[in-house]
């Protein structure tokens, strides 16, 4: 266990460094964006005079390094700053969006992960059968479609023609849990379709990879049932790659769903990020990027920890 604690500590420290560098990169990127917040907000109405006044009010007239370090200083103290636009506390603004994003990711994950692993295990069990090939072709096709296309098709069938689900995911705090799930169904299905294939194929491959190993042969020679061989002997040893791909997909569900959010008008973090880039709302862009990066770092850490937990060799060293 102490090994895990050490690893977590090490990785967290490294993660912090990564986050710091990312914040710097993102800040520089935003600095290089053509135009600034004031111009973006004022649009056609941006006269040099009003832009200058706006910049003064927001402190955008300060030199970049000063702004960055002020931001960093506040950040370290837990103050995310305020949105330039709405002057709202970012923690509040982002909290709500992040919650939505995580909600969607969770719903999709809860559908996708068991489905993918089950399909993968079954495909490994009945490999080279008709079922295996069918699942293979179907999942391959589903990752081959652009996300937005899958989304539109789902809308056409499930919302327009059948009317089972709402075409847009208009969710808010006032909704009950099930109502929220109902309204999130279509984006969740879209994401499920997009990421099941990846996870399923990896599960299948990881298991099949192991089927040639001596302990699987041993299990067969012990007269065990094929299902038991797969579940009890192959699956536990295939966990590490499966966990990795699952976590990778989780990260995707959190950070990579901009398109789906746009199509379903889902008020998630991705849309907020795109909007903020468009309007040069630096603190929001920064905070979003950091949240995304942090998700990535933490999920990777989670993958490592889970991989260790699933591997007795690492969990119980000699």
């Amino acid at each position: 266990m102490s090994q895990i604690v050490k690893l977590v500590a090490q990785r967290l420290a490294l993660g912090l460094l990564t986050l710091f560098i990312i914040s710097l990169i993102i800040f520089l990127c935003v600095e290089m964006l053509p135009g600034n917040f004031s111009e973006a907000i004022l649009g056609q109405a941006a006269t040099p005079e009003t832009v200058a006044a706006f910049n003064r009010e927001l402190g955008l007239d300060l030199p970049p390094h000063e702004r960055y370090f002020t931001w960093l200083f506040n950040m370290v103290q837990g103050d995310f700053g305020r949105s330039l636009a709405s002057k709202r506390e970012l923690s509040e603004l982002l909290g709500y969006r992040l919650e939505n994003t995580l909600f969607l990711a969770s719903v999709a994950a809860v559908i996708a992960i068991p489905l993918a692993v089950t399909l993968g295990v079954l495909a490994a069990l009945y490999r080279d059968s008709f079922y295996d090939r069918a699942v293979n072709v179907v999942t391959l096709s589903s990752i081959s479609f652009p996300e937005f296309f899958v989304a539109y098709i789902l809308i056409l069938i499930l919302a327009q023609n059948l009317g089972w689900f709402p075409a847009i995911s208009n969710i808010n705090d006032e909704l009950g849990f099930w109502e929220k799930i109902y309204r999130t169904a279509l984006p969740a299905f879209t994401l499920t379709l997009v990421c099941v294939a990846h996870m399923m194929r990896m599960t299948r491959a990881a298991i099949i990879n192991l089927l040639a190993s001596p302990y699987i042969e041993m299990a067969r020679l012990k007269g065990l049932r094929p299902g038991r061989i797969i579940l009890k002997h192959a699956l536990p040893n295939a966990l590490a790659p499966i966990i990795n791909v699952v976590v990778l997909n989780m990260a995707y569900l959190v950070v990579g769903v901009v398109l789906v959010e746009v199509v379903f008008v889902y008020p998630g973090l991705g849309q907020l990020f795109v909007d903020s880039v468009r309007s040069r709302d630096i603190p929001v862009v920064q905070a979003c990027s950091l949240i995304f990066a942090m998700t990535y770092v933490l999920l990777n850490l989670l993958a490592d920890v889970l991989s260790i937990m699933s591997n007795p060799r690492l969990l119980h060293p000699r």
Partner: protein
Amino acid sequence: MSETADKTGQKGDVLVEMHGLRIEGRSDDIWHEIVHGVDVILHRGEVLGLIGESGAGKSTIGLAAMGFARDGCRISGGSIMFDGVDLTKASDESLRQLRGSRIAYVAQSAAAAFNPAHKLIDQYCEAPVQHGIMPRAEAESDAIDLYGRLQLPDPENIGFRYPHQVSGGQLQRAMTAMAMACRPDLIVFDEPTTALDVTTQIEVLSAIRGIVRQFNTAAIYITHDLAVVSQMADRIMVLRHGNLVEEGDTRGMIEDPQKDYTRELLAVRTFRKDLLDEPNAETPLLRVENVSAAYGKSPVLFDVSMDIHRKRTVAVVGESGSGKSTAARVITGLLPPSSGQVYYDGQPLAPDHRKRNKDEKRCLQMIYQMPDTAINPRQRVSSIIGRPLEFYLGMRGADRDARVRELLEMIELDPAEFFDRFPDELSGGQKQRVCIARALAAEPELIICDEVTSALDQLVAEEILKLLQSLQDELGLAYMFITHDLATVRAVADEIVVMLQGEVVEQGPKEQILTPPHHEYTELLLSSVPEMDPDWLDNLLDQRAP
């Protein structure tokens, strides 16, 4: 064949009877026959030894006794009767019920055949519980009992460890216990001691033999080592290329082999190099002086010194973990020593190989244990051998090709046939020859041979040893010969260095080391090498018993 079986004397009824067994294997989507109609009879309580080189089909036949063919193989003809049931016609379900409960299997590498994700005892209990023979609790206490009988340390608790927490020899015994769990009628042992050090091998062999005798279980014992099988088996079948060569009871076979091939197998360890004069006092070609080395923070070599003289072979012998390969890495400069110095021809060598000059590198070549990984599978033989020619000697074009052909002839491969081949198209022995040619191409003075024969079949290994010997005679090379196999040492060494846990235990000329009195560890090593004598193990155990 049945006459022979009769002659062996029955211990019981016939348990397994294979007739005209044919097995095919698939490569490149084409089925090739790999076992060409073999008959096998096994009686209850009898131990049958299957012996042969790789590709003889011995494992395949052993598995066929369980009605099992590996992926890419299929049983294409003949019958396999197990206790009155034809396994070739039995349903998958009935086969599954037989396996594990009435026929059990002990694999070559226990470390690989135990599932790393589960504790030993869980894996032990699986077969009896799944086959409905006994409940879990009973199986557990039975396991502890068997662990005890197999002389495993701390039998109460060892089952609750994971495979990686248990040593190789112990794992092999735990696997034997697992095979015994349902008290099967037949156990197939597939080279159970091949991967073990000689000293450990003794323990495992005695444990296996004890338990098989105790429960009067019939067994098929598969191995490539005639000396080992003669300790275990009542009767031996010699196989080659999927055909039966000879069959007979153990003692008869050892004492009076009928076929040339069997005789060759028996003679395999008799090659001896001619004795040379004592080394002259001139500067040794290579001198290792008080070298210590470590991987990271864990030290592996302690104050090792040795000399290698021109035209002589120094054998470095020791079991796994003795540091013999590390010594080679220090000499080649792959692992700079933490202290000590290596001299070549009296000149100190840079500790790091990257700092050595081309000539120093050229003079010191290395041949590796696994020819599969030692040559680049994506290069043709001509480029593998040709590269050192270009690199060291600046040969180009036709010159180079001519020299490659010369070298190929030197290693006894037909240039016309092998020049353009890829390593995939070579056998293990041929690959090792290519490795030798590559080393030779550099025109070295010293070649470090790191377990060069241990991955090869015995006959092939012997050929390689002979080749190396003739090259030494012809070119005046010096060899540093790293091996765990004392037979090899006996065959090729001029001088011997015995290593144990990173230290040199004893060193000196061959006669001196091999003649008593020995150092304690040398004694243990020497006595543990199985001999072609069915009574050897019994005698040794008697001897060692306190």
